[in-house]
């Protein structure tokens, strides 16, 4: 029985996702010089914030959570843009349209890969922030890990979708942050507030509220971007 190329069943969703993740992570590993550079960029950004606000340790401690997440956000512009650069340069998105890869798999794979990278970045930055800003950590480690992960995921969902758009357009470098940042504002607010409470203690019990905001943000945007991604990479 013959079937045309396009009629073959696409790989199952999970297998497709795993394939995309593996490919993207492998590419990042192969170009780990670039990955290292991005991590150093994050450090540098953090440092610049500290220099900009001066040596007053009280202010630095107050704003540490904010700097942390801003450093992650600015670095994400680099890493998100990178995740589609290969596709853009090789016109690989055209190729992907001919293959039976479900755009949903492509989105999930890339977004998960991006999340893992940003989570790793945030984890590395926390001890640096704590040391340089003189903060103590009062909250639970588990909760901290959860917030870092939720924040990374929140950046990655719309970030992956917008990176896909931006990679196909000129002025792609400025378009990605221009589109992404307004959408992320609630998530950044939630992540910074939660992190600050984890650093400084939570006398009024607001941590749950910010965590809920992050969870709700992620639920909304992962679902929405998953559904809409097809329109962004189709012909």
């Amino acid at each position, binding site marked *: 029985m013959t079937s045309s190329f396009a009629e073959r069943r696409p790989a199952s969703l999970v297998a497709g996702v795993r394939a995309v993740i593996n490919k993207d992570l492998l590419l990042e590993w192969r170009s780990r010089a670039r990955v290292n550079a991005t991590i150093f960029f994050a450090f540098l950004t953090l440092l610049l914030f500290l220099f900009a606000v001066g040596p007053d340790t009280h202010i630095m401690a107050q704003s540490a959570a904010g700097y942390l997440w801003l450093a992650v956000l600015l670095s994400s512009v680099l890493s998100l843009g990178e995740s589609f650069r290969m596709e853009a340069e090789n016109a690989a998105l055209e190729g992907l349209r001919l293959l039976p890869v479900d755009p949903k798999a492509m989105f999930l794979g890339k977004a998960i890969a991006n999340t893992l990278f940003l989570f790793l970045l945030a984890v590395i930055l926390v001890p640096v922030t704590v040391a340089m800003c003189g903060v103590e950590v009062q909250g639970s480690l588990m909760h901290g890990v959860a917030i870092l992960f939720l924040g990374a995921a929140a950046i990655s969902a719309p970030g992956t979708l917008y990176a896909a758009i931006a990679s196909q357009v000129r*002025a792609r470098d400025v378009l990605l942050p221009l589109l992404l940042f*307004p959408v992320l504002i609630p998530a950044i*607010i939630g992540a910074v*507030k939660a992190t600050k409470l984890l650093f400084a203690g939570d006398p009024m019990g*607001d941590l749950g509220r910010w965590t809920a905001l992050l969870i709700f943000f992620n639920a*909304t945007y992962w679902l929405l971007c998953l559904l809409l991604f097809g*329109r962004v990479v189709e012909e």
Partner: protein
Amino acid sequence: MKRAIDFGLPLLAIAGIVVGEIMGLWIAPAERHMGDVYRIIYVHVPAAWVALLSFLIAAAASFTFLFKTSWAADALAEAAGELGVLFGTVAYILGAIWGKGTWGVWWTPDPKLTAMAILVFGFAGYIALRNLTEEPERRAAWSAVVAIILAAGIPIVWFAVRWWGGLHQNQSTRDSMNVFMGATLGINVLAFTLLFVWFLRMRYRVAKAKIDEELSEPPEQELA
């Protein structure tokens, strides 16, 4: 019928604005606490309301486009997006001036103003995307996606900004409004809405004409 609207709507809008302004500037009494500065709300509130309406229209039109590939919907989304940024900017500037006049600061973490600013920036990006994409199909699909993502964020933005500004913040925008002030505000809102519909129709016409022209051009040569 269409000609009647084409003529009548601008006239009605302008008349409404004039009446509204006269009421707001002269006939409405000075407010007890804030004196005359409060009159800014007679332009600030209608502009903000119209901006929000415009963004919702843009979102609805975008949603329609994703289901039906209607170029009228795409043109409407373009028009509404741009008008939302216009009226939202006006609302924001006026809000800042009002803040300076009443509380002495150009900006406070007022949830409404902050949420509006986020939407305005978001749709400014929407406009930038449209300007940077040349193929009509892609432009329409991508900007529709962006508009829907922005609209979906509105409730999340609202709560985030409200909690961020302080959990026990009270909204001091409505102090003591007597009936006449309320009526003046209502008339201004109505007049602004008419103005908005007038602008929207014009801007829609411009957008639709552009798309029609782009779609009627001969397609580029396919690669052999």
